[in-house]
Structures are given as structure tokens and as C-alpha cells.
């Protein structure tokens, strides 16, 4: 077990470096030169300078900023290593992500690590509630459909899940917004709290809850259909196993057969969905957050790409990549717990 995890971790680290390298190289293609911009701006603010003085001053500042930002070389590998914090800057200091310097957001005028946590918390909050609601609905539904396969109830559910599965999530959100906001006027259209309000304590909590309810409902409905389908399919597969026939032949009650024998087998394919879903909540739901103006990770990323806030983009990419790899590891380890046949000692 320990050896397996160590192996996986090593592999993870390798992939992490590979992906961040690719992304960093992409990022290098961006026509942004922070040192140039800063030096240029600073020279602009200076007065009483002749053209020549201005030029020399600019050169001087430009070099200083380049050294400060570590862009005083054209070697892309050095740039990458400096960004990681594995290669010293001009002044001999290491100052990369391993030292905790993830960059500076020009859009927020704050270090990116200061901006991200509140967004991450928002996304996580709404995501976890959604995930619990989704699993609470879909698992019983999927099991019931699989057990009563081809019954009227099953066909009915299948019909609706087919529609839901085929509908891009943003259309579901549009329909919900139109129905709940424009027709029923039940919920506010966007935002996290009533604009201009200074509620505190209980009032504030209610206000936030009122704003968050519709996004949560939307997000839940957006993923109901596909998970119900997966749950039903894996349960049908599990029910056709030989061990189920044996269990029934033993005279076990139908309840025991379904919930302890079949469900245990059906859980294996579900594991990646459940765990992946929980990790996915941290990454945020981009489309939903954009439509509701919900300050989560997705909106943060989208705004960063729109305003070309490159340090923010890179940091979020690092988080996304890390989350993806880490959730894969957790899924593989969970397989071993859920399915005793999967041995991970190798």
C-alpha cells in the first residue's frame, strides 16, 4: 500500500511538472511584459526630463524591473524554474511558488493567494450542498430504476433524464432564471447579497442564503440527469452478476440483495463520479457562476482570462491541475476500499 502510494505520488509529481511546464510555455506566448509596462509607467510619471535622460532612465528602470521580476533572461527553462522557485533570481534569492510566491494579481492589486480563498470557499460551499443534494436524489432514483427496469416508472425517468442529459447546462439555468426570477420573482437574479445593504448577523445570513438558493437549485438540476443515468447503468450491470443470483438463491430478502450485494458492486463505477464531483466543486462551476455573478472560482478564472490577469490564470491553472491529479489518486485508493478485488499493494 505505502509503496503504491509512493509510486503514484512520484508519477503525480512528474505529471504536475509536465502540465505546469506546458501551461507555463503557453503563458510565455502572451505578449505581456510586466517589466516594460512598469518601467514605462514610472518614466511617464517623472517630469522635467529631456528625451535622452528619459531614455537612459527608462533603460535603467527596465533592467531593474526585469531583474526584480526575474525576466532578465531569454532562457525559457530558467524562467520556468524561477517561477517554480528552483532557480535563483538576479539577487541570488529563490522566490517562486515553492517559496509561497504565487504571483500578483494586477486586477485586484493583491497577491493572488489573498484573492483566491474567499472565492474558493464560496464555490466549495455551494458545490458541497449541491453534491449532497444530487447524490441524495440520484442514487435512490438510479437504484429504483435499475431494480424496476423497463417499468413505467423507469421509462418515465429515462425519458426525463435523456432530456436533461441532452440539454446543455446553461439552457437549464436560463429556464430556471426566467421561471424563478422573471416570472415568479422569488429569487434575485444575481449577486451574493442585496446591493448596498449593510446587514449583519442573522439578517446577513438570511440574505446570503436567499441569494445562493437559486444557483444551488440550478446546479443541482444541471447534474441530476447524467448521474441518475450512470447510477442506473452501473446498478443494472451489478444486478446481472452471478453473485446476485446466488444471493437470491440463498433466500436472502430482496432488500439485502439490492442494498448490500448489488449496491456494493454498483458503487465501484460510482466512486469516481462521487469523489470527482466533490473535488470538482472546488474548481467552481464556470457557466453557472458567470450567469449568476456568483463570486466563485469559475468566475474568477473567467474574469482573469478576460482582463488578461496572467498570474491569476497561472495560479488557478496550478490549482486545477493539482486538484485533478489529487482526486485521481484518491479515487484509485478508494477503489481498493470499495472493491476488495482491486489490490493496490502492487
Amino acid at each position: 500500500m505505502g509503496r503504491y502510494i509512493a509510486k503514484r505520488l512520484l508519477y503525480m509529481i512528474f505529471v504536475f511538472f509536465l502540465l505546469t511546464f506546458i501551461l507555463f510555455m503557453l503563458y510565455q506566448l502572451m505578449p505581456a511584459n510586466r517589466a516594460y509596462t512598469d518601467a514605462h509607467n514610472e518614466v511617464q510619471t517623472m517630469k522635467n526630463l529631456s528625451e535622452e535622460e528619459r531614455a537612459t532612465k527608462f533603460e535603467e528602470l527596465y533592467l531593474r524591473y526585469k531583474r526584480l521580476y526575474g525576466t532578465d533572461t531569454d532562457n525559457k527553462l530558467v524562467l520556468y524554474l524561477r517561477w517554480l522557485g528552483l532557480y535563483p533570481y538576479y539577487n541570488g534569492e529563490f522566490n517562486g511558488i515553492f517559496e509561497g510566491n504565487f504571483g500578483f494579481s494586477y486586477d485586484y492589486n493583491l497577491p493572488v493567494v489573498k484573492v483566491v480563498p474567499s472565492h474558493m470557499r464560496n464555490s466549495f460551499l455551494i458545490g458541497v450542498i449541491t453534491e449532497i443534494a444530487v447524490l441524495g436524489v440520484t442514487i435512490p432514483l438510479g437504484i429504483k430504476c435499475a431494480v424496476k427496469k423497463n417499468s413505467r416508472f423507469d421509462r418515465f425517468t429515462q425519458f426525463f433524464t435523456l432530456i436533461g442529459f441532452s440539454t446543455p447546462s446553461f439552457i437549464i439555468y436560463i429556464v430556471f432564471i426566467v421561471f424563478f426570477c422573471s416570472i415568479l420573482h422569488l429569487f434575485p437574479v444575481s449577486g451574493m447579497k442585496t446591493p448596498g445593504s449593510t446587514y449583519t448577523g442573522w439578517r446577513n445570513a438570511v440574505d446570503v442564503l436567499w441569494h445562493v438558493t437559486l444557483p444551488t437549485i440550478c446546479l443541482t438540476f444541471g447534474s441530476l440527469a447524467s448521474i441518475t443515468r450512470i447510477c442506473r447503468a452501473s446498478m443494472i450491470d451489478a444486478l446481472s452478476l452471478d453473485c446476485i443470483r446466488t444471493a437470491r438463491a440463498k433466500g436472502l430478502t430482496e432488500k439485502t440483495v439490492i442494498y448490500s450485494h448489488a449496491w456494493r458492486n454498483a458503487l465501484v463505477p460510482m466512486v469516481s463520479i462521487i469523489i470527482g464531483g466533490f473535488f470538482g466543486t472546488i474548481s467552481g462551476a464556470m457557466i453557472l457562476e458567470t450567469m449568476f455573478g456568483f463570486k466563485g472560482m469559475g468566475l474568477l478564472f473567467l474574469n482573469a482570462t478576460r482582463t488578461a490577469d496572467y498570474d491569476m490564470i497561472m495560479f488557478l491553472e496550478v490549482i486545477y491541475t493539482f486538484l485533478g491529479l489529487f482526486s485521481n489518486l484518491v479515487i484509485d485508493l478508494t477503489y481498493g476500499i470499495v472493491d476488495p478485488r482491486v489490490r493496490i499493494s502492487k
Partner: protein
Amino acid sequence: MEKKKKENIFRKLLRWTVRGLMGQKYEEKWFGKRERKEVVYKNGVPDDSELIVSPGRQIFNRFMERKFAVLSVVVVLIMFAVVFIMPHFMTKYYDAFTETTQKDLPPTMSLMKVPKELKNNIKMIDSYGSFSVGLSNDGKVYIWGIGKLGATGLNVMDIPEEVKNAKIAYVAAGQDHVIAIGEDGKFYGWGSNRFGQFEATEAVLANPNLEPVPEIVRNGELDVSHIKKVAAGFQASAILMDDGTLYIWGNKQAYANLDSFIGRTNILDIDFTLNNVVGLDSRQSSVVTGKKGLYDMVRTKIYGSKAVKMKEFLNGRKILEIRATTINVCLLLDDGTVALTGDFQYDNVEVPDLAAGEYFVDIEAGAYHYSGLTNLGHVYSFGGDHYYQAEAPVVNGAKKLYAGAFQSYAVDGEGKLLNNWGLKGYLFGTDDRGANIAERVVAGGRITMTVGAIAVIIEIIIGVSIGLMAGFLGGWVDIFLMRVAEVFSSIPLYPFMLILSSLLAQVSMTTDQRLYMIMVILGVLGWPGFAYITRAQVLVARESEYVTAAQAMGVKETRIAFKHILPNIISVILVNMTLSFAASMQTETSLSFLGFGVNYPQPSWGNMLSRASNATAAINFWWQWVFTSAILIFTTICINTIGDTLRDVMDPKSTNDK
């Protein structure tokens, strides 16, 4: 002995058509009895004890039993045919088309529908943008078309009570207002008054950019019997008396030369282009605009003639009438010919050559087109033809002609409507740029489906070859390739797509290149799924006897992989291809919706919906997203149904009877 001819595919198709359309009787009469193997079906599955059916045939048979799936196949095929063939017939369609006066119109077919009460009793008709106003001989006002003005809540179709009760002598339609003058000289107006179109409120009087309605008009002191013409333009209106006195008012910012017409008393004709007031003064030798040189180059044909200076062109002839569309002006001369001045955009119908002895007696102008009435009672249209509004039908005995916006109406001496032609309306409404949504749905479908299909093809090519290699070669190649697949599948799609999109936005790209980029990215990020499936299938197939036999016979490994194994796993790939096609379409629409996929002006089913992310727009302009998303959902449902059914019927374990 007669040799039985083997039926070729065309003969077969013909035979099926005959059977489908005319029945089995005719089929047998013309094609002879079919040789039929009697297949015994048991529970819908061919009974193996009687006859052995090939697996492909069996799958086909089982598929054909699912009515919903067969229907889906038909729907998807029709959809493909529509989106790939229809654009060739939409000759007037182009991506970046905009038309301000037609924006945000709901689905309607009523733009040219003259009310029944008015049909035999027409006194005059005037249109602007999306609505037309008509006046009957007994002085009643009728309005048809779309009178709702955007999201302002104003509706020009709400005719004020006093107008309904009064006997009206003249009406005219402006961009967002209607003016009317009663038989007793009383002046009425309704619609938007933001620019003082019909009422001199305090705000209007205080605004130096607005010219208020002249007092004499407001007080109803006009002598109706001496009114020559009532005209309304974008945000201005004018009343012309037969002694040449002109009353003109409205937004001076929309019509910069409006000032030069105030208080004129020598005007014979007046009209409005989009930005200029054009008039004809008593000299009848030039288009009066108040600006020197504007509308001074005249020609007789739109394309086929050279423009000459007005003075040279007229050569003593006099101008009788001037009529203006959005940007150009048409002149009717005293010898019955027409002359044009100003620029012409795309898509025009040329001025007709009249037969000897026939000459124009009246010209009317729409938004881009002109319609002319001749002395023989025939009508002709020319000018802008984007909505086919310049394709006049054959009309005999027309005495009067009215044109406005994109429609023309030919009327006989008693006021009976003889014929009308032009823009009827929009099946799915128009979008915020005035483009026809129905056309954009078709053009957008072509792009969405192409992107989906090409992305899937790229996925299959990469995924299947890597899966085949990994599964067949095994060993370190397998491990390496699977690790690569893992890396690709752990790239988060949306962030990656967004970053690439914003990156490539810095590089100047044509819209087509952008489209290719989206296809390639979707394909390159999506292949691991196919690789996993192919590899798993190959691992199973490798152990089967036919592969061992091939290996024993010394067949080359690549040949085994592509000629022996691939055909056996193609069914699984087919299922995944279908499902992945739907998924790619969804990804593309989501990306385009966010603004990172296909961008305007190219339509896609995703970016056509992006306006609906605004709740107010989504409810006010419901037709802008309802139809497009319904078609998108319907198509994906059908594709997914096909995929699901294929998977079901290919799975030997599943049976039809539960």
C-alpha cells in the same frame, strides 16, 4: 435460361421508393417478385434454429424494432440535410447582416397583413421598420405588423381613443411614432415622444437639439384641404402644404440638416433618408439638402450607367417627385423616367426598362427599395432586395401605389388592395441585430454540427490508433501511451480552452481559422476516452482464436491490428462516436455561450443564446433563445437516443423482452 440480373444499389433504391410510395402491388408488377428468405421471428429476434443471421444483420434488425431510435435517425438525417443543404438556398444570407429597424422582433407573419376591414377601402398606407399604418376612406386608422418598441413598453398599436373616434385625413409612420391629422385639422400623435416627435412637452421645448411641433400644427389650425403631403422619418416629421409651406419638426441630431428646412415656403416635395431631410424646391432642378454637393451625381440605372452632374443630367427636364430610402434618393422626372442619386448597398434589383409608350407616373420608397407605378397601371420595383421586396408581381389596373419599410401595396381606383409584396415576417423572430433567427439557426447548425463532427473524427483518429497500438503492442509502449492519455485526460477542458482562446485572441486570426482551432482543441483533448475503450477491446480480441490463427499464419502485426481486430471492435467505437458527437456539440455550444468558442458574426447554436444570460432579455425576447435551444436539445436528444439504442442492441446480454 434467363440469367437473373443482380440488383444494383440504384435499382434497389428505386424499388424501395416504389414500395414506400405506391405499395407492394406496383413493386411486384415492375420489379418482379422479390426473392425472400422467410425469417421466423420469435420475440422479435430472428429464430436461430431456423436461420442463422449475421451479427450485423441481427443488430440492424433489433435496431429497426426500436421505433423511437429509427425516428431519431430520420430526424438527425433531416437535420443534417437541412443545415448542410439549406445554406446554399439562402442566397441573401450573410453572417454579419444587421438591420436596425428590424431588431428584436417576435415571431410573426403579419408584417404585410392588411386588416380585412381595410382591404377594400384603402385611402393611404405608410410603413416604417416593423409596422404599417393604414387609413381607410372613412377616416379610420389601422395598424398592423409589430408595434411594440423594444423593451420600452410603448406600443404604437395602441391607437388613442380620440383618434379612433375622429375622422382622420392623413397618417404617417415614423421609426417609433405615428402622426395623424383629422379632417378638422386636429393633430394627433402616439408612440415615443422622447425626441418631441408629436408633443411639445417642457422637456422638448427646453432641449436645443429638438425642434418642437410648430404651434399652428399643434393648435389644429391647418387647412386640411391644402395639405399636400404628410411624411415621417426616423425621429422627425413634416407636413407640406400645397402652397409650398413646410412644417417640420423632430430630432436635429438625427437630421443635421433639419434646421435649413424650417420656415421654408417654396417646397414642392419632402422626404427623409436615415440622416438627411431631402426636399424639392420650386426650381425643380436639384435635391435640396442644405448641404452642398450631396445627392448631386445622378444616374439612370443602379449598376449599368455612369453618374453625371445633376445640371448636366437634367438638361432642361424638371423633377416632379423625390422619394428617399435609407441612403439614396429617386427622382421622378417630367418625361416619366426615373433617376437615382446616392449610394447603393449590396443586393439590388436593377431599374426596369419600360416598354415603349409606358412611363412612370408615381414612385414610392421603402426602406431600401422603390416601387413605381406606370401609366398603364403596371407596377415595378427596384433597389434593395434583401427581403425580396423589390420583386414585384404582375399587377394590372393599379391606380395607386404605397410603399414603406420592406413592403409595397398596389391599390386600384376604389381603394381595393390588388396585390402586396415584400417582407411577410419572421418565423423565429429576429435577434438584437435585426437578423432573421430562422436563417441563423440553419447557418449556426452547420457550424455547430461541423465542429462536433470534425472534433469527433479527430478524437477517433488519434484515440483509436493509440488504443490499437497500446493494446496490441503491450509492454512499455502500452504503459507509455496510457500515461500520455492520462496526462491529456487530466487537463481541465474549460480552463485550458479559455486560456488558449484568450491567448490566440492576441494573434490575429480569421474566423475560419478560429473555427479550425476549436475543432482541433476539442479533438485533441477528447481522444483519451477512445484510446481507453479501444485498448480494452483489443485486449479482449487479442486472446480470441482468429487472431491466434492469423498470427500462426504469419500475418504482419499491423495488418492484424487494422484488418482483423479493428473491424471487430468497430461497433463499440460507433456507439462512442455517436455519444461523443453529442458531447462535442454541447461543449462547443457552452464555450460559444461563454464567448470563448465561435464568435460573432459566425453563428453557432451556442453564441446565439448568449444574450439570454441576461434575465430581462431572456423574458422580453424569449424567441431569441427558445427556438434555438429547443432545436439544439432536440438534436442532441436524437443523437443520444441513437447512441443508447446502438449500445443496447449490440450488447448480447440485453434482450428486448426484459
